[in-house]
């Protein structure tokens, strides 16, 4: 379990001599076990904020605390180690490795642990069972539908049992039925497994499944 505390976070991109302020003094608190949806128009800074929370980008200023870790103070190496243990990332386009089977994709984050091969396989299979795809363990991504691929990606995100899940438009590339299934799954992970979830979405139906909706406009959180 972990809460997310974002304090006075600013992100500025430099393009040649021009400075683009993407996030401007963001303050956000996500309590333990919360399911938050970040909404807003394109370019409002939703994904940037998500990336900062997940530790895959660095804030220009401000602090981000996830659980007891001040993410903004970690070195590159420490940040990578922290991500592997504490954050599960769900991408819009699934981003499964095409040469690996569903089971191998899910097992990938466990390669960074000291688990034995048998233990890794067992955990990966358990994660696939949670998302209802144990029978597709040996299938390759090209043999799965979009919804199934996203479920494998979710299994990969939860296999290390992270406290926080961040999802960047997880239903953005899916049909309505598959999107519902994915949202049901996220809901399950939040309710049953007490995962803190921060989800970026454009879809009001997806946002409605979250407990809290926050809107971003031009790099600022709407009140």
């Amino acid at each position, binding site marked *: 379990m972990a809460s997310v505390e974002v304090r006075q976070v600013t992100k500025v991109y430099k393009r040649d001599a021009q400075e683009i302020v993407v996030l401007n003094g963001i303050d956000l608190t996500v309590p333990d076990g919360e399911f938050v949806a970040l909404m807003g128009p394109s370019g409002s800074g939703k994904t940037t904020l998500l*990336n900062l929370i*997940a530790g*895959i*980008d660095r804030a220009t200023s401000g602090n981000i605390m996830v659980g007891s870790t001040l993410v903004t103070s970690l070195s*590159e*190496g420490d940040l*990578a*180690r*922290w*991500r*592997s*243990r504490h954050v599960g*990332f769900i*991408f819009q*386009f699934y*981003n499964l*490795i*095409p*040469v*690996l089977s569903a089971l*191998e994709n899910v097992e*990938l*984050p466990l*390669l*960074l642990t000291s688990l034995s*091969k048998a233990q890794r396989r067992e955990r990966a299979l358990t994660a696939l069972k949670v998302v209802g795809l144990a029978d597709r363990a040996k299938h390759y991504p090209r043999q799965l539908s979009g919804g199934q691929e996203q479920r494998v990606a979710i299994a*990969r995100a939860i296999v290390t049992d992270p406290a926080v899940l961040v999802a960047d438009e997880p239903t953005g590339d899916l049909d309505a039925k598959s999107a519902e299934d994915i949202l049901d799954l996220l809901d399950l992970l939040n309710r049953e497994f007490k995962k803190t979830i921060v989800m970026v979405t454009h879809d009001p139906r997806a946002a409605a499944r979250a407990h809290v909706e926050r809107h971003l406009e031009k790099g600022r959180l709407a009140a």
Partner: protein
Amino acid sequence: MKFLPYVLKHLRRSWVRTLSTIIGMALCIFLICTLQTVLDAIRKTTEAANPSRVVTRHAVSLTFNMPLAYKPRIQTLPGVRRVAVSNWFGGVYRDMKDFFPNFAVESEDYFPMYPEYVVAPAEYGAYLADMQGALVGRDLAEKYGFNIGDTFQMESIIPPYRVSGPLKFNVRGIYDAPPGKRSSVNTGMMFFHFKYLNETIRGQRGAGAYSGAGTFSVQVTDPGGTAAVMRAIDTNFENSDVQTKTETEGAFLAGFIALTGNLVGLLNGVGLAVGFTILLVTANTMSMAVRERRTEIAVLKTLGFSSRLVMALIIGEAFTIAAVSGLIGVGLARGAVGGLASLPFMGLLLGNFPALEVSPVVGSLTFLLAVGLGTAAGLVPAMGAYRTRITDALRSV
């Protein structure tokens, strides 16, 4: 090791590209290994030259002969123990593709100088007793199935030695290398009596005709005095019509090799070019592989793979390609290098060296070169992957 299946799966992703890279690299390694084996044979042969032997030849060129009358004059010089005429006969057995080195030598003086040619006393006696006798090396005998008592014919390609027909020979002995010296003694040659050649020429061209001496092999009494003997020989004939050039056996062999041009430089140059090609081929393959996988690299980093680990995985792919190519290339060279001497033209040169084989040192060094170059080629794309920022790579989808 737990990442090895991941590396192998990636290599199988574009198997045509991986396979073509491996084949290309393996051929390069095969070429380098073969060239280095030839250079190794040349080096071993020149290193194995006996310091107590010197070779006297025509000062202008090896293609001119010297008067036979020089022999007694050399023999009387201080420091000289033995002198023997040795002529490159240039005889062709059956066909040019069956060419092997063959020499007409003054056997009674020549073989005592060359203890490295080991022949059974009975066979040597039979050889000396037979004017048409021939001594063949063990490798040559095995290659053409020569046995004691066999007869065969050879005709020279060198005009002064071309008489009305081929010369007939009887195999009277088979010589070997001493134990442990097989890699430095050429047992692919054939010797016969110079007097047989000389008298055949006289018999067919008249009493005044003679073959002349292509070279004089000279054994000195003291290896420390070799330089003085060489100077004395050449000084002796300084004011003659036919001046001589005397050099150590090693220098003579090196000069003989130089007849084909700067062979060592050429082979090393080809090796360098091939090595550079390996670098480019692998670098190109790895760059393509990394460029195609920018998103995957970003995903790996998102999952917690450190930049160093991602870099190591890519270098691991380059290493695997290089190692497999190296093994295939060296394996091919080991299998094929023995057949080089039977190739047209190559045989003329390589026949003068002991049987070619890829030594463990050459094989290992070539393999290490493959691995080193392949891994180095993977460094640049690996550095690119190391520096890839997750957000940039994910945005470029």
